[in-house]
């Protein structure tokens, strides 16, 4: 019997820390263990005893890339516990705020993380030497996303503008006008990025997987909706735990999530696949012209899905800011009480589910946070099995390591929120 073990000790161009162990026996993969180190779980304990608005600021610190997602899921959960009903202005501005995060996060992943993989470069730095405009476009859009986050959050990194009930302040019409002009000026860049991702020579491999995301009847879901799947699941967010199971695996500090016992996909590709009908016609027409079809079950179309969502988020932010009217009550009053509530929003990387139990004064008794990367972990392992066996296990360890990294990076795993980079160990 021939044996081979591959170990990728450090995963490059992934947010956070992770490692991969694969075991090959007689040219077959017998073990694929993605090890992720996951700090959010510690946050659950940190939050106990905290006041509601402390939670909003604390959870923003879980991730430097997607703080708004954490803030929004927490705010929605606490508002549901306290029977608070933020008015339409708050709901709409939260959507614009969140668009900023989708734009900045997706721009980084497309241009700095996944892009070099499909352009044949070892890093964004090397790609920038030959394709400076591509990288500059990405940086520009990334910066715009950060600015949009700052409009409502006062800063792009760990914003502080959101509170339970809405916002601490409403942006001035002057600041909104400046932001709107920048978004309108740079909208053609979003279209260009979509064209560029559609022109990439992506690996062609269809896989069978279940997509999961939020779905809202009237809009492309970001902050609100029911949890739906490509296999017919359609539930309110409160029922998440009845269908999704988390389990501990010895090889990872991140919990593995399964839907009815099986791996599933969350994130941009799942969203575009399930909510394609809710995208504006201008994007559908563009995709048709580019000969790109969704739903797609080629995982590598994730980069195109991200570009679709950048384009969408720019259009949506423009639509909202054009109609902006200053509001002197950007938050509704907080009415703390003891109960249990849930919040679920679409972080750039996918479904981000929170559950809180509060005390009479609204302080946190118990918190549970299920981030997208741990939900995708089982799906990544399943993808690695299929992809590496098709790719050929006879390849040397270096090639297997690179192929593994490309597969993993494609999910944009925020391993800082579920975990540094890939240590690959191959056991042959």
């Amino acid at each position, binding site marked *: 019997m021939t044996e081979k073990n591959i170990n990728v000790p450090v995963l490059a*161009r*992934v*947010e*956070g820390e992770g490692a991969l162990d694969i075991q090959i026996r007689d040219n077959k993969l017998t073990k694929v263990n993605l090890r992720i180190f996951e700090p959010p779980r510690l946050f659950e304990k940190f939050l106990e005893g905290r006041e509601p608005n402390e939670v909003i600021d604390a959870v923003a610190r879980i991730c*430097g*890339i997607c703080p708004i997602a954490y803030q929004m899921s927490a705010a929605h959960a606490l508002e549901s516990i306290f029977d608070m009903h933020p008015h339409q202005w708050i709901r709409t501005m939260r959507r614009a705020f969140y668009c900023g995060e989708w734009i*900045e996060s997706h721009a*980084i992943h497309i241009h*700095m993380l996944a892009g070099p993989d499909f352009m044949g470069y070892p890093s*964004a*730095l090397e790609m*920038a*030497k030959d394709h*400076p405009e591509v*990288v*500059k476009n990405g*940086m520009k859009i*990334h*910066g715009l996303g*950060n600015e949009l986050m700052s409009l409502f959050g006062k800063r*792009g*990194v*760990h914003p502080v503008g959101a509170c339970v009930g809405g916002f601490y302040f409403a942006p001035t019409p002057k600041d909104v006008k400046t932001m709107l002009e920048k978004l309108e000026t740079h909208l053609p860049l979003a279209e260009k990025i979509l064209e560029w991702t559609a022109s990439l020579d992506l690996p062609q491999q269809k896989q069978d997987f279940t997509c999961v995301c939020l779905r809202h009847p009237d809009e492309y879901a970001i902050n609100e909706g029911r949890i739906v799947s490509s296999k017919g699941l359609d539930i309110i967010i409160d029922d998440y735990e009845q269908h999704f199971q988390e389990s501990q695996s010895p090889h990872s500090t991140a919990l593995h999530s399964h839907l009815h016992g099986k791996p599933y996909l969350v994130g941009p590709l799942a969203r575009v696949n399930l909510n394609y009908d809710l995208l504006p016609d201008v994007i559908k027409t563009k995709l048709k012209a580019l000969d790109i079809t969704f739903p797609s079950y080629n995982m590598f179309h994730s980069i195109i899905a991200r570009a679709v969502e950048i384009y969408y988020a720019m259009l949506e932010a423009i639509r909202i800011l054009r109609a902006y009217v200053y509001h002197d009550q950007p938050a509704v009053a907080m009415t703390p009480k003891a109960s249990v509530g849930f919040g679920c929003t679409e972080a750039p990387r996918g479904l981000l589910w929170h559950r809180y139990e509060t005390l009479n004064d609204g302080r946190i008794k118990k918190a549970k946070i299920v981030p997208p990367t741990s939900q995708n972990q089982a799906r990544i392992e399943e993808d690695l099995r299929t992809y590496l066996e098709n790719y050929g296990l006879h390849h040397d360890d270096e090639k297997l390591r690179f192929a593994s990294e490309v597969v993993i990076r494609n999910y944009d795993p925020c391993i*800082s929120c579920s975990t*540094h*980079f890939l240590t690959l160990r191959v056991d042959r």
Partner: protein
Amino acid sequence: MKNKTAIIGVGSPFGDDNVAEQVIENLMQAQSSGELSSHIDIKYFDRPGYALLELIQDYSNVKLIDAMVSDKPIGFIHRYDSLSAFQQAKNTLSSHNMGVAEVLALGEVLGMLPEQITFYGIEIKGFTK
């Protein structure tokens, strides 16, 4: 017009990595008491990643402060007057994967760096892995 100077501290607010934040706080106090020119922008950014390039766009002269780990004693201040000198320094530390050196190298390739950039690395106790 790009003729402004900025002193920018970067790093996480946690542990010894917050040394740049502390320096920036002291400099801000010095500025408010008139010891330092009010024409200089003094800023701290918590692990800005690639956004650092956008954040330094408006300046012609940037002084960047970050924590460092080398064989020097804790509190030692390293100074590098060019990006290449900074990159050649061994054991530069970033508590985040998108390190300052990596981001600035990208900025150099893209022509996005200020005319003058000086790095100050303050020696801290290293992280254990």
